[in-house]
């Protein structure tokens, strides 16, 4: 199982987590390269709107390029840095809900309800 950031840290890999054309997004990688929806949802709920707006402003305009970069590889065989790039797209989708729809981290009128994603594809 890839754990993205932690794996890189432990093995003392280069500091850059993302492919070089995406160096400008590197500052968001530690926080937002998350392998699963439960992690991404938890990160969103733990973030402020200004943190998410900054991430969104940088990553949203690059979704097309990020996906085109990943599409050059087989989905089941993404190199680690491309895999983290796709995770960053997934996180951009997550924060877009707050930035575009709710204008707050939580879903309006969800109260305390939870809906756990208990199974999903990887990556």
């Amino acid at each position: 199982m890839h754990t993205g950031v932690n794996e890189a840290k432990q093995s003392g890999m280069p500091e850059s987590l993302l492919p070089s054309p995406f160096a400008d997004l590197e500052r968001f990688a530690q926080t937002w390269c998350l392998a699963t929806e439960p992690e991404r949802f938890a990160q969103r709920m733990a973030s402020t709107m200004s943190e998410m707006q900054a991430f969104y402003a940088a990553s949203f305009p690059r979704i097309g390029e990020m996906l085109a970069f990943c599409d050059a590889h087989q989905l089941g065989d993404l190199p680690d840095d491309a895999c983290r790039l796709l995770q960053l797209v997934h996180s951009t989708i997550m924060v877009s809900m707050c930035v575009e729809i709710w204008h707050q981290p939580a879903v309006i009128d969800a109260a305390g309800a939870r809906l756990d994603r208990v199974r999903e594809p990887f990556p």
Partner: protein
Amino acid sequence: MDQYPRPAEGTWTEHYPDLGTGLISYEDCVSPEFAADESEAVFKRAWLNVGRVEDVPRAGSYVTRELTFAKTSLIVVRDAQGQVRAFHNMCRHRGNKIVWTNAPSEETSGSCRTFTCKYHGWRYGLDGTCNFVQQESEFFDFDKSAFGLIPVHCDVWAGFIFVNLAESPPQSLRDFLGTMVTALDGYPFDRMTERYDFSADIACNWKLFADAFQEYYHVPILHSQEATPATRAKTQSMGFEAPHYQLDGPHRMVSTSGAPRRSWPEDFQYPIEVATRSGLFGPWDEPDLGDDLPGVNPGGIPKWAIANFQVFPNLEILIWETGWYMLYRYWPTSPTTHRYEGTLFFVPSTNASERAARECAAVMFKEFALQDAGTLEGTQKALESPAAQTVFPLSDQEILVRHLHKSVGDWVDAYRRERSEAVRHA
């Protein structure tokens, strides 16, 4: 002003005269006595979907299902011949729960050649036969072949695994499902193996949550944010009208229609929907499933978009014209709570762009389902108040709500009649 033609009677509800048009009570969502009888009358008599054949892909693959309403746990397993079987998850020696991993109350899955009891090591084959007893000769007048796992009726339709807890179900699975549902035979459910599974414990009666997914009258209001700010006022003033409703025995369906999302103007979409070519309505770029998709449009309506089948009692199969489907199940856990399971099924992604499109669909599904979950807990609380000892109106667009409560009520009434007759004859 009607947007779509309605049956000759003038309304969908009056087209099915047994339904009536009167006010209804939600006592069936708060009363512990009703819930107890409903378990017996409905959940222990109807065929219940507990999974897909892909959950048990090979001989020896199994899953366990905790059926709280019946206070039982089931093992669903594919045997050596490829047949899917179900057994009570209980050892015939001294009743221990045989299959569990982290905790006895948690569902699990895996693969094995025999089931071995953790307590004294009795072993059972994939067909339930008891084939090993530790120190067998110590037992008295003992024939282990009489101590196999207790089977539960199990059958498969279109790759959906159903069980029936009745001793002898009055109808076969196919007869139970009826012609409207089984018309979907041949739909390529088996190709849609990329899954996003959700689970939630929700503090409302299972029927209240099912109701929120079988009427769209609430959508422009509770989910006003499904429409972009540019279109919200118009969406709300238009309200919702379905082009087709259909009932078949205890089962029901609603169709919606509309132009495919990819053809909508840009300001009708959120930016993330444009960027991922996906959203609440699913990926815009459809897989090629061929033209022959039986049963999905029973009303023969032009430009169908959704076919939402409500299979009695607690299963929803919602098929999108754009080539994917959702499956919801509602499991009562007490009179006023239930466990909700929801899954989105897609043809597998072949690249990152397709994966991101599916991710966007799964993320937006959860956002708006959370609004239902939050709101329905409030409905439950209000219906438990003394103010709710009254009756409530339902519109023609809520015909399926009326039909669910009536169908459950009919099954419970039949059960109560049988019970009082049995008492009288005793």
